[in-house]
């Protein structure tokens, strides 16, 4: 594994202050390495987008960061604390080092400006050395990089298809050659074919430009294909992190296992699958102990009273899970014991 680029430690985000505050992210630890695709999976309300907004300091009130640290290691010996950064430092870091792509490109683009003008805007603000012609040329070049003819610079967002709008957002994000791309459900609103085309292009760009990606989505089956490492969130907490392949073949947290069993397979015999009983908790009234215990099929007495920490699991390869089953003295069931068991619904 290459050296860490972005380190999130104990990050805590609340909505509101005082006794009514709701903790949306509770003590998240994440590490994004250079040129890595880190997938962050979770359902709605799990805090995955809040986490992204907190990292990029885009969080708006009533969201408040109440603890933890986010460190950006731009080069050896040059570390920036994102949570301590002031407005001007953030302005220098955003786009240059850290760019964001959001789900709804229709809302992220200005509908009354041609996309070319929006691309040159970024360059004008951050690359004052470029003149008008150079900016224009660079913008055209960026569009070509994401598979749109440069002739489309004059198009307005409504003249582009959903997939092309999202490509424009990606072009804008890579305009200043950042080291980190944070993508929040970038392809969720798109059809599968378009989604696949954009992912292919993103991966080709990553290989060429060497940036790292924090890819946030609810679609775990997609992450397993594209991510190097996956972190699974549930009710504001990271419950499992592991290499994508290991997480798929040998999940250690019952929630991850349940999620994997929620995606019907495209191959093999058709089997009855169960999903996960119950629904995600209300963050205002979190269950005691492990937040997942009311829905968990493997619940222990301890789970209702003590919150399990995210800890390295035995016989894992940089694999951590927040589950008492993995703690010393317990023997987890076969499907959570770290042996590469075939997930139900996949070919045996």
């Amino acid at each position, binding site marked *: 594994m290459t050296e860490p680029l972005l380190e999130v430690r104990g990050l805590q985000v609340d909505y509101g202050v005082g006794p009514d505050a709701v903790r949306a992210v509770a003590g998240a630890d994440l590490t994004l390495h250079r040129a890595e695709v880190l997938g962050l999976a979770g359902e709605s309300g799990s805090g995955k987008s809040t986490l992204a907004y907190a990292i990029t300091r885009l969080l708006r009130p009533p969201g408040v960061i109440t603890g933890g640290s986010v460190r950006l290691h731009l080069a050896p010996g040059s570390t920036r604390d994102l949570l301590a950064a002031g407005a001007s430092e953030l302005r220098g870091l955003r786009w240059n080092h850290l760019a964001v792509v959001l789900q709804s490109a229709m809302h992220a683009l200005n509908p009354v400006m041609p996309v070319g003008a929006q691309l040159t805007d970024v360059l004008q603000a951050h690359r004052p050395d470029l003149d008008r012609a150079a900016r224009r040329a660079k913008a055209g070049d960026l569009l070509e990089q994401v598979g749109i003819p440069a002739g489309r610079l004059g198009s307005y967002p409504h003249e582009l298809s959903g997939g092309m709008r999202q490509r424009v957002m990606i072009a804008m994000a890579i305009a200043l050659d950042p080291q980190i791309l944070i993508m929040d459900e970038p392809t969720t609103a798109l059809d599968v074919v378009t989604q696949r085309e954009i992912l292919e292009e993103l991966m080709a760009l990553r290989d060429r430009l060497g940036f790292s990606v924090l890819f946030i989505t609810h679609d775990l089956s997609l992450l397993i294909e594209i991510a190097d490492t996956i972190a699974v969130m549930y009710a504001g907490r990271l419950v499992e992190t592991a290499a994508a392949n290991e997480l798929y073949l040998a999940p250690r947290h019952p929630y991850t296992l349940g999620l994997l069993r929620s995606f019907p397979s495209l191959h093999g015999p*058709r089997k009855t699958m169960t999903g996960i009983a119950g629904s995600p908790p209300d963050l205002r009234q979190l269950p005691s102990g492990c937040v997942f215990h009311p829905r968990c099929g493997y619940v222990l007495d301890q789970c209702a009273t003590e919150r399990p920490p995210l800890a390295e699991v035995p016989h894992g390869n940089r694999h951590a899970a927040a589950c008492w089953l993995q703690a010393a003295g317990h023997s987890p069931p076969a499907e959570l014991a770290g042996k590469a068991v075939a997930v139900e619904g996949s070919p045996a």
Partner: protein
Amino acid sequence: MTGPSPVLAEPEAGGVPVLEAHGLTKHFPVGGTRFAGRGFVHAVDDVSLRLVRGGITSIVGESGSGKSTLAKLLARLIKPTSGSLALDGRAIPPGARAGRRYARQVQLVLQDPFASLNPIHDVRYHLVRPLKLHGIPGDGAGNDASGLRPRGNLDEAIADLLSRVALAPPEAFAAKYPHELSGGQRQRVAIARALAVAPAVLLADEPVSMLDVSIRLGVLNLLADLREREGLAIVYVTHDIASARYLADTIAVMYAGRIVETGPAATVTDQPAHPYTQLLLSAAPDPDRGQAASLRGRGAPPNLVAPPPGCRFHPRCPHAMRICKQTVPSLTEIGAGQASACWLHASGLSAQQRAPLKIADSQAASEPPLPHPDNAAEPGEEA
């Protein structure tokens, strides 16, 4: 088929289909009727379907493929431009009374349970309305003079409905308001409302796509259950071909307003015959895929105001031949229950007809669309 699915019993084969659609076509005028003469969106063209008792048919397609328009046509929420429906083998006579009888037999569940329930009314209200409008099914005798059922029976009927969709305890749920329910619970209420009139056909338009991943299967399994327990014929409209494979007996793949392939669910996904089905499957997320996905085609669906001549997929098709641009292929049986609308499966074509279309042609044609294609291709808006 790769063996029977334990989820689902096989539908009753043979007999008169519960609902049959023949040559359904819907063309929406562009920009509404005020701008007549600006052309038509060819949202659904010449679609025929047979729904049998206890069978689940899945309509799979991307946005703009016409799948939701088809669901609305089947529900008779919109009038077809041409084509006909037959319920239990009989055509639907004109008039409101026949329309109401049809609605009692064919019910629609919509995608968004946050929008399809009225936020100012409780669950009980949502279930009482169909019961009052259509009467409590299976019992004509107990009605009082007003034609309505005595209150006691209504409560019983509501409790029964809620327990059939696994919302327990029913008394507690009947008193709740939509905002007190999770997405999955709301969708169950929407399904219970559809069941209130004891329909023969349930049309479910993307019933789980707004729900969280972990609760989707619960709703899909409920649909499977209802078909098994109550012999409902179910139409499951979805963009997710993996879930269609899980739930349905039969899959019909739609592209640009036409059905391009139908067949037993596992056959269509395991041995897709139509190049579009192959493209769709090559793009679907699949953790079991050994190597990187390789897309079998490019581009975007066509503008449906002026759809491509011949096969509507030909501008994107890696196998396009000259004839594909000239003549619409019809759905042709190619194997056990599987049919594909593709000239590749036709025999007796001349060498000239088989001549491959130049890549340049197909590339140019697949250049994404000019202003409005999205709006034009989204039939929901006009409907």
